[in-house]
């Protein structure tokens, strides 16, 4: 039995009404893909390729001009914002500078869509939040102000808040940008465990193509709002495709340890093997 994809983009087109600069920045045109349960789909591409637009379309913050977004086989347009939030959780890049709450309070905020009429969280909400903090190693930090956490702890706390929503789809927007290596690894392991063990679909937006190559089951390459490629990392991380997308020469090698593709820009002193 095949389960319905947790998210399904069907020929989605979106353009912001105001034209910024020469091109309609952040617009996307005729993009189709799906995210299956337990799958990690990476979205890669240059700046303003439309990666964040996909995220916003996925949560109903933006509505497509054409095409349809479906969540677990239900058109997004038919779901209210609370119903969407029970299925899709977004991990933003950062929280506002002066976010004043504690870790425990932050994680409990993720329970909002499960009882928006309540002024205070239920016992069940507290139990879910406690379990999520346990899974992410945050239990001891529950009473600590978010502003006092280190970069890695912050990232875990923000992910924990999203997990408290108990989503079917977890969307992460550049989760490792502000993290050093150790925390990048922790974050990657956490995401992998979620998809493998809990069957959560993951949409990972990342600049870091090497992380994406190792972590993702499939990659989606976007450039100027167009879908250039969709498939396993080995196929998508092709020097020709990436060169077109990023507008520069790209070298793809193979990691000696994992066998995964390793991508970097070719600059003047790069020796390109010609085969």
């Amino acid at each position, binding site marked *: 039995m095949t389960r319905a994809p947790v998210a399904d983009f069907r020929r989605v087109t979106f353009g912001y009404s105001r034209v910024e600069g020469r091109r309609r920045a952040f617009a996307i045109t005729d993009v189709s893909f799906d995210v299956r349960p337990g799958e990690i789909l990476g979205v890669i591409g240059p700046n303003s390729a439309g990666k964040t637009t996909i995220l916003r379309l996925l949560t109903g913050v933006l509505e497509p001009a054409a095409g349809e977004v479906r969540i677990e086989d239900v058109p997004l347009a038919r779901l209210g914002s609370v119903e969407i939030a029970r299925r899709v959780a977004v991990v933003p890049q950062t929280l506002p500078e002066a976010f004043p709450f504690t870790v425990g309070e932050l994680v409990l*905020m993720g329970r909002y869509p499960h009882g928006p009429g*309540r002024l205070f969280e239920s016992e069940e909400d507290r139990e879910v939040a406690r379990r999520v903090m346990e899974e992410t190693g945050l239990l001891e930090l529950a009473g600590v102000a978010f502003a*006092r956490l280190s970069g890695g702890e912050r990232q875990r706390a923000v992910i924990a808040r999203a997990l408290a929503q108990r989503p079917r789809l977890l969307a992460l927007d550049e989760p490792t940008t502000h993290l050093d290596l150790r925390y990048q690894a922790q974050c990657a392991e956490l995401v992998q465990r979620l998809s493998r063990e809990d069957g959560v679909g993951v949409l990972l937006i990342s600049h870091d193509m090497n992380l994406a190559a190792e972590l993702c089951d499939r990659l989606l390459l976007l450039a100027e709002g167009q879908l250039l490629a969709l498939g396993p990392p080995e196929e998508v991380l092709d020097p020709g495709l990436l060169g077109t997308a990023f507008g520069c020469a790209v070298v793809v090698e193979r990691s000696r340890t994992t066998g995964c593709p390793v991508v970097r820009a070719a600059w003047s002193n790069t020796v390109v093997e010609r085969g």
Partner: protein
Amino acid sequence: MSPVRRLLVALTTLLAVLAAVAVVSLLVGSAAVEPAAVLWAVLGRAEPESLESVVTVGLRLPRIAAAILAGGALAVAGVGFQALTRNPLAEPAVLGVSSGAAFGVVIAQVLGLSATVLETLGLAVFAFAGAVLAATAVWIVASAQRGLVIQTLLLAGVIVGIFFSSAIAVVVSLVDVNRLGGVIHWLLGNLAPVPRPSLALFAALAALGVWLIARDARELNLLALGEETATQLGVATERLKLRIFLGAALLTGAVVAFAGPIGFVGLVVPHVLRRIVGEDNRVLVPTALVAGAAFLLGADTIARTVIAPAELSVGVITSFCGAPVFVYVLRSQRRPAP
């Protein structure tokens, strides 16, 4: 401690404090009345025309009621504006909203509204309109740049405040001063006894404003995540912001209409409370209501006794408390993140 327990403990403590302040406030004043006589008068056993009855029932009790209403309303308005702007310095007076409301009241007085209940309602409507006008102006000026930057917001508040203060000065100069009796005293914030029907109206307006903010306290917490994240969690942020905006403007307008533009209550009270009960707006809103009442009642008791038989404007006392807190919060905001 769960937020519900924290709320109950804090609320009980604060209600006790408020009761104590109210008792002191009832007992002291420029007219020397024995405590026993005060008690007698409050219980309605004294002669209606006697000194103790006139002083306690006629003057002190309504004034205590007005101080409780105004203090609670201002503190809750402060919490509302702070959650809306995500800035602990936002407050009706700092944002210039009080000045806008005061301008509305002055216009209403020029038009001849003052004494009867219906006219007081008109006064409150003008004050509310002035508050909305000023708050909208601040919002537009401050969000001209991308997002709401703290410094821009404060500057916008100062500018709008100065503008409306000047407008008030113009109106006062143009109109026969006798028609605007006591306007200077009122402009500093003055809790003169309010007649009973007007007091009931004040209470109703304050209750409406507090309800508008308190019912959305959980959503206000989520707003601290940023608007987009709050939306992605299912909060209807635009409607939420509008309700809070109107609620806070209504509270400010009501206070200004009945007691004048009293500054800094909405800054000092939430600031001190956050240190004790934390940031959760579900705890902060009800406790601010009671703590604000106790704070303003205390300030007013000082204002009317410290230079007796003359009295200070209560706004002078709250500003003396508020200015240092403002500077402190501003400086601690500038501290670079660890």
